[in-house]
């Protein structure tokens, strides 16, 4: 049902979104690696005044098993205020929760009880395949004219091309494939946009057969995973430009465009260079002036591998004698000032000041977990941690950062063969000078997650990777 006034969690501009009240709850996608039990949406209390602060206060099991929850998102967000498709009286209340392995899409209603999201719809893999020709749904974005959902696989669930399906805003039914002309695009992963410039950007991972049983060494060394990003015309749904990073830069994953709609740049994180195991972050930008100048990429951050005793390394890494940083997620604060970079391999979260996006400055770092380091959290200094900061979520005001530790079931097993565990940490940010401090009161881990692994966090009311703004 529509509202009389706009949903109060919608903001026309990033500047105003940064003044939003702090989140009271966070939603976390948790999954059972053995596929014996249902995956779940866990609800965390993020209100520091609450007696349950930092604890799991809600838990909703999914109806099936084997979904492998990964990324999820809201049905509607600030883009509903955009002027060409304005409908700000919808509500941000449904969580669209895809199963990356099962290709099932779940719709959860977070009202009337935000601590107990309840299932209102399940879209089966057959509907996604029949209507859009896709499988393995991955990234959810609340667009002004529909819900955009990237998918890694084609209709057969093993190969490509992956792409974007569009879901109806109100019925959540699959409306079809987004692409009118995909050009040379074949691999898929993330999607985001410069809304006011009618530009859509996509990145590349691998087809389901390339990732579902773990990273394939021959494919990696053969430079067969994705290494390009694609630019599209958002209005005509046509491929415009493919920008290759160079085939040594394997797996450009998360895309983080500037939130300021007058800007034409964004960041993409690259998991690994096969030449020296380093990770990198690249900036995409217009090559020249003018609204239609072609796109280019520039490598702006390099993070080297850290030497290690092969005895401490999993089989995959023993021959290299080094721990790759493995940048698996990045996130940009709503004011476009700080970029957070997850180094899931070395167990580090880095904070860069990107006020000048071409010249990021490292201003903060926290170590947690890591393949060799196993750095403990200050709240539990005697417990070595597996996994590392992986999915990063930033509060709209930029003062709080949440990290969870699982990457992807089969990949967790390769890099952390003795178990990745389950933990989620909150870090406090110094918004003036940069700098990160783990919050000792906020460290849900272990049995708190009932044996499930934790992947992505979404904050009640929106966060730095959920909303798009049409006004500066």
């Amino acid at each position, binding site marked *: 049902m*529509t*509202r*009389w*006034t*706009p949903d*109060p969690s*919608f*903001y*026309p*501009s990033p500047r*105003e979104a940064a003044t939003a009240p702090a989140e009271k709850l966070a939603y976390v996608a948790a999954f059972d690696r053995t596929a014996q039990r249902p995956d779940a949406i866990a609800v965390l209390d993020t209100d520091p005044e609450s007696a349950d602060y930092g604890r799991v206060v809600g838990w909703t099991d999914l109806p099936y098993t084997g979904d492998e929850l990964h990324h999820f998102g809201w049905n509607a967000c600030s883009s509903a*205020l*955009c*002027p*060409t*498709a*304005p*409908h*700000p*009286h919808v509500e941000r209340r449904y969580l669209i929760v895809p199963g990356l392995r099962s290709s099932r899409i779940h719709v959860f209603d977070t009202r009337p009880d935000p601590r107990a999201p309840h299932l209102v719809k399940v879209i089966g893999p057959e509907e996604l395949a029949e209507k859009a020709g896709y499988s393995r749904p991955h990234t959810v974005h609340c667009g002004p*004219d*529909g819900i955009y959902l990237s998918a890694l696989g084609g209709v057969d669930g093993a190969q490509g091309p992956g792409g974007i399906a569009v879901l109806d*805003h*109100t019925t959540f039914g699959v409306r079809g494939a987004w692409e009118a002309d995909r050009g040379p695009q074949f691999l898929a992963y993330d999607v985001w946009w410069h*809304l*006011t*410039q*009618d530009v859509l950007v996509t990145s590349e991972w691998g087809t389901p057969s390339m990732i579902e049983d773990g990273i394939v060494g021959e494919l990696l060394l053969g430079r067969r995973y994705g290494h390009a990003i694609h630019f599209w015309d*958002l*209005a*005509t*749904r046509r491929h415009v430009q493919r920008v290759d990073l160079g085939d040594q830069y394997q797996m450009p994953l998360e895309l983080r465009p500037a939130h300021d*709609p*007058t800007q034409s740049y964004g960041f993409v994180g690259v998991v690994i260079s096969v030449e020296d195991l380093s990770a990198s972050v690249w900036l995409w930008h217009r090559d020249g002036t003018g*609204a239609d100048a072609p796109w280019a990429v520039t490598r702006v951050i390099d993070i080297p591998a850290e030497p290690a005793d092969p005895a401490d390394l999993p089989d995959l890494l023993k021959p290299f004698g080094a721990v790759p940083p493995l940048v698996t997620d990045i996130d940009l604060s709503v004011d476009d000032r700080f970029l957070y970079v997850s180094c899931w391999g070395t167990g580090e979260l880095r904070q860069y000041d990107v006020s000048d996006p071409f010249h990021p400055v490292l201003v903060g770092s926290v170590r947690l977990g890591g393949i060799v380091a196993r750095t403990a959290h200050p709240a539990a200094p005697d417990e070595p941690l597996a996994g590392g900061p992986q999915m990063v979520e930033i509060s709209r005001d930029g003062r709080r950062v949440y990290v969870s530790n699982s990457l992807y079931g089969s990949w967790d097993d390769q890099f952390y063969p003795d178990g990745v565990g389950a933990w989620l940490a909150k870090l406090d940010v110094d918004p003036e000078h940069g700098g990160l401090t783990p919050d000792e009161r906020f460290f849900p881990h272990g049995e708190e997650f009932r044996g499930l692994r934790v992947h992505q966090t979404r904050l009640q009311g929106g966060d730095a990777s959920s909303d798009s703004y*049409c*006004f*500066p």
Partner: protein
Amino acid sequence: MTGRTLLALAALGAFHGLNPAMGWLLAVARGLQQRRRAALLAALPPIAAGHLASVAVVAALVTATRSVTASTALTVTGGVVLVGFGLWRLLSQRHFRWAGMRLSAAQLAGWSFLMSSAHGAGLMLLPVLLADPPSTGGHAGHLAAASAGALPGLVAAGVHTLAMLGVALTVALVVYEVLGVGVLRRAWFNVDRLWAGALVAAGVVTLAAAI
């Protein structure tokens, strides 16, 4: 066309002009995006032209038809259409969609035409146009009335659109220069819902008057 009719048409135009979804918000967005008030100003005439076209189609049809066949059938049909359309707007959750943000002047006009039509902007004028006394040509005036029949409709659409443009321009400038888009969060009440209710009410009034 009486003074009261013109006033009513202008008032409806002002109502359309107030609605952020009818175009002024898009003009503000273009101004902000390009950081130029000129971009805002340049966007409004094509938007008004699109609105005019949408309204004029209905208005011209109604007045032209009515002058030839001044029957209650048209009024009843109009009333039924209004009620039906109003209910559909009330109950339907579908929203008008348009993909692009970077629009040329012609595309802007097209966007506005579709937006106005989808929201039933022309239909909104029906009660006013139908309440207007039909042109009385008499024996001698039959032919003249038939050929000039659409003219009052076009005048009506013109008056309506001028009022719409004036209000849209004023609101756009006030938001752009003074208030800022933050005002949207508080002030953007659900015009669609109000509008749908108004359509139903107008339809009922039209029907009541006809029967």
